């Protein structure tokens, strides 16, 4: 049973426009959420995170929004650039301050930004 769901396998956006990647989760015990980006032949790299006590976190062109009541988060990329083309994974942690907190990943969304 998928605890972290990314229902859109792919997204295509034009350069300069906004990219919105969505993620839903089922476990209300999750207290920390992260987005990872993955290029082919490389491991995932950390992009941005948000604690469950917040509803927004911004870092440059990247903003993550969290709606706890809906168990939904989204990643906004503005403006999108061709170099943003990659697979984006949503991940969650339960017990963020505990030892050995493994990441629970969604299946990923492939973002393609065309110039």
């Amino acid at each position, binding site marked *: 049973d998928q605890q972290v769901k990314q229902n859109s396998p792919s997204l295509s956006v034009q350069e300069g426009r906004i990219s919105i990647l969505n993620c839903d989760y089922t476990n209300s015990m999750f*207290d*920390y959420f*992260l987005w990872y980006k993955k290029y082919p032949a490389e491991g995932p790299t*950390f992009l941005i995170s948000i604690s469950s006590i917040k509803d927004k976190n911004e870092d440059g062109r990247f903003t993550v929004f969290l709606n706890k009541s809906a168990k939904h988060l989204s990643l906004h990329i503005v403006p999108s650039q061709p170099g943003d083309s990659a697979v984006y*994974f949503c991940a969650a942690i339960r017990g963020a301050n505990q030892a050995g907190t*493994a*990441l629970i*990943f969604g299946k990923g969304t492939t973002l393609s930004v065309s110039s």
Partner: protein
Amino acid sequence: GAGVSQTPSNKVTEKGKYVELRCDPISGHTALYWYRQSLGQGPEFLIYFQGTGAADDSGLPNDRFFAVRPEGSVSTLKIQRTERGDSAMYLCASSLGPGARYEQFFGPGTRLTVL
């Protein structure tokens, strides 16, 4: 500095054989994680080490899988009597410590193919 490295990058083996996958974490990182990513899926947690000990092996699918980290640095994931269903990308990650505040850095992975 050097990131997480994994060897080999690709491993092809026959059903029933034994394989070892190696992970060299970032120097000084005490926490080490193994994940497995099957085609079309996100990474799934296998095992977590804090120092030399396996603090959480709840993600190992069965007793054919085993991992060690004898000196608290390099880790080896061992798979006995490989099956075709073991074919996947095996990812290793390390972090400065346990908990969400320490970013997990991923290696490029080892792609295992069992024929």
